[in-house]
């Protein structure tokens, strides 16, 4: 017999902010995701993407909002906390992201596992939503997990049946964390060497570094890598005799002044010893 575990409160504690900022309807982001900052909360989970419609299990979809696009693959699940005022039917409660991730300009890829029934105790286990990646302004953040929290030290391997059973049956809330393993998508840009040895830097690289035609790069070998660094060009002045005379004027000391300087510095040296 299947039983469903109920959670007394919204596991993400987002209800104080409880504003649906974006919704996924049939795979489309209808409204741009906005930033939320809760009154009186210094470190709130600040951005929410709420999926409030039936989503085909394991379906992949993509949509473009006014300010960005969201791609996701997800399964459906039922609300358990009951505290979302504007959610009905099958839905996914809010997926939360740290403050510095603005989904409105991000690419989000997530997957949500299906509900499972534990073969040992018959408890229906809640699905786990995993954010596969968030790409925000060219930076990809990987590895967010949203779902039943895992106790410290608990085995994650599905092959460990005992640990898996314990995880599934544990009456726990949700965890939502972004493990900030950033990868710069620019690092994978490709450039091909021509017959003459020239390469073309990808436009996005040039744009991000503000490189323009005529700019000079220094080329340095670092192991098997080639490091290109925008060079700083500085003019070299070839001094005239008048200029050299000007320079020497500032360094000219009379014997009396030189003795005074030696005393000033000499006393300091004695003190430092």
């Amino acid at each position: 017999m299947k039983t469903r575990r109920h959670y007394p409160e919204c596991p993400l504690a987002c209800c104080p902010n409880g504003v649906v900022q974006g919704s996924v309807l049939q795979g489309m982001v209808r409204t741009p995701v906005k930033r939320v900052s809760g009154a009186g909360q210094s470190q709130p989970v600040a951005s929410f993407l709420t999926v409030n419609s039936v989503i085909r299990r394991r379906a992949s979809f993509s949509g473009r909002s006014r300010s960005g696009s969201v791609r996701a693959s997800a399964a459906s699940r039922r609300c358990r906390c009951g505290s979302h005022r504007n959610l009905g039917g099958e839905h996914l409660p809010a997926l939360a992201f740290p403050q510095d991730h603005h989904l409105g300009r991000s690419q989000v890829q997530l997957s949500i596992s299906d509900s499972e029934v534990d073969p040992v105790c018959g408890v229906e286990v809640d699905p786990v939503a995993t954010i596969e990646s968030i790409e925000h302004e060219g930076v990809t953040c990987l590895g967010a997990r949203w779902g039943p929290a895992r106790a410290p030290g608990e085995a994650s391997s599905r092959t460990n049946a005992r640990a898996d059973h314990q995880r599934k049956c544990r009456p726990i809330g949700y965890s939502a964390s972004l493990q900030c393993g950033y990868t710069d998508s620019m690092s994978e840009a490709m450039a091909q060497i021509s017959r003459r040895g020239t390469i073309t830097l990808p436009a996005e690289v040039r744009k991000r570094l503000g490189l323009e035609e005529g700019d000079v790069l220094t080329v340095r070998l670092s192991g098997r890598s080639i490091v290109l660094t925008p060079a700083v060009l500085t003019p070299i002045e070839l001094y005239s005799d008048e200029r050299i005379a000007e320079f020497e004027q500032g360094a000219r000391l009379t014997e009396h002044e030189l003795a005074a300087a030696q005393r000033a510095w000499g006393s300091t040296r004695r003190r430092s010893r």
Partner: protein
Amino acid sequence: MSGPLIVFLDANIILSAALGGPAFELLLRLANEGGVRLVTGYSCVVEASRNVQRKRPDRQQAFGGILTSLSIEQDEADEHAEWATQLVHPDDVHVLGAARRVGAQVLITGDLTQFGHLMKRGDLGLRVRTLGAFLLEGPSRP
């Protein structure tokens, strides 16, 4: 007070030091005794080197000896250079920017034309001085 004064040398000071003189001898002695730490920028070394070759090739060896007393820093286009653009001629931005970048307390230059207006200012976070003025002031810090 901790550690030696960090003193940044403009290219013209390195050239003048290669030419010699009692004030420069005192400065180098202070560096050897640990009273000051002399720093300069890569482009300052290049500029000084070119002018030594061109004007006084006979002082090449002295020039090489002076370099052994200097820490040489790379030039960079960063926020320090950006800050310096508001204060000096574009051709000298790399000097002031590098001095600030390395945390120099004093920038010594003989270029009164381009840096003279900064020598009376006390709000820069570093003193801009001629070598003579620096030596006479002693090791006071801003």
